[in-house]
């Protein structure tokens, strides 16, 4: 029997210092009865991320010729996954804030067909262990949660979480229609919901990033809020995508 093929897509922008330990972490959850593959997408990093990826050698490296933003980088990974017949895909951050142990937890509902899209959520449990983000960001997260709830009826507990799992169906959709600019996460949830995919939140703990700076610094947060709000509202005005 064919082994289940699972890939973990990691968009990398200037993650030379983090990436090896992130892949180490993922390797700890790999089980022999499945075929796991890490796919790293180098979004034209300014540091030597590409060299770090090539020396590491444990991942399929997709090297974008110009910087496209995280959404398009992830989409390149989805395109690879669709082309190479992967059954399940995960989107995982390259900065070390996601924990690979979460992947196991998130894989189960995908395998059981309980959901098309699984979101790793920091806020699902009453227990507040692990990194929960700053108060200002938590305010933003609550705002997006309410906005998406108002527009779609589903209330994602952690709409900005970048830790996500996909089955074949949602993976194919993402390869075609993934929101391709920066900060795609909240927009993607609404897009998936509107196109009939079922979404499930799974509680995961996250860490604070280890090295490097987050892509969302304080000055850009205003832009982030406006852009994402606008994009979410536009998604809700569009009809369902016809073909996927």
């Amino acid at each position: 029997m064919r082994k289940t093929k699972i890939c973990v897509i990691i968009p990398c922008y200037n993650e030379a210092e983090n990436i090896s330990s992130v892949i180490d972490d993922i390797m700890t959850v790999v089980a022999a009865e499945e075929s796991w593959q890490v796919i790293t997408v180098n979004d034209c990093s300014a540091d030597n991320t590409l060299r770090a990826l090539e020396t590491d050698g444990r991942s399929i490296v997709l090297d974008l010729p110009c910087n496209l933003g995280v959404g398009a980088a992830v989409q390149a990974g989805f395109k690879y996954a669709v082309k190479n017949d992967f059954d399940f895909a995960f989107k995982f951050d390259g900065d070390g804030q996601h924990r690979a142990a979460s992947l196991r937890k998130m894989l189960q509902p995908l395998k059981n067909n309980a959901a098309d899209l699984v979101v790793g959520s920091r806020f699902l449990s009453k227990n507040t262990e692990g990194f929960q983000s700053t108060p200002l960001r938590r305010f933003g997260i609550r705002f997006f949660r309410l906005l998406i709830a108002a527009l779609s009826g589903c209330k994602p507990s952690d709409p900005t979480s970048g830790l996500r799992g996909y089955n074949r169906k949602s993976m194919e959709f993402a390869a075609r229609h993934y929101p391709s600019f920066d900060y795609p996460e909240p927009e993607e949830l609404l897009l998936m919901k509107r196109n009939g995919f079922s979404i499930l939140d799974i509680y995961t703990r996250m860490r604070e990033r280890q090295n490097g700076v987050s892509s969302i610094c304080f000055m850009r947060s205003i832009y982030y809020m406006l852009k994402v709000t606008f994009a979410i509202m536009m998604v809700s005005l569009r009809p369902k995508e016809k073909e996927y």
Partner: protein
Amino acid sequence: MNRIQIVSVIASFGFLFFIFEIIRQKKLKEAYALIWVIMGFFFLILSCWLQGLHFFSRLIGIAYSPATLFLVLIITLILIMIQFSIVISRQVDKLKNMAQEIALLKNHIEMLGNDKKTKTN
């Protein structure tokens, strides 16, 4: 014909000639030039036919006829800018798809190279 009319007729002709010339030299695509050509003809007609300009201005309630020209000019420019934004957005999308395709192909080529190496070894 008064002086300003002569000047604007010459300027309109010059403008139209310039547009047609860059289309002929394939520096500008016909599809994107249409709005420029229409604008050029509009100004040419109005510079020859002053009564037409006055009539049109009265029709939409503008007392000072030259202001009508500015209005038309501004509206046309806004339309052209919107067209540019659309074209740019479309190009960004195409560029994105091509860059992704290049990344996939680079990976594919590398894989082929590796296969060859393992075979010869």
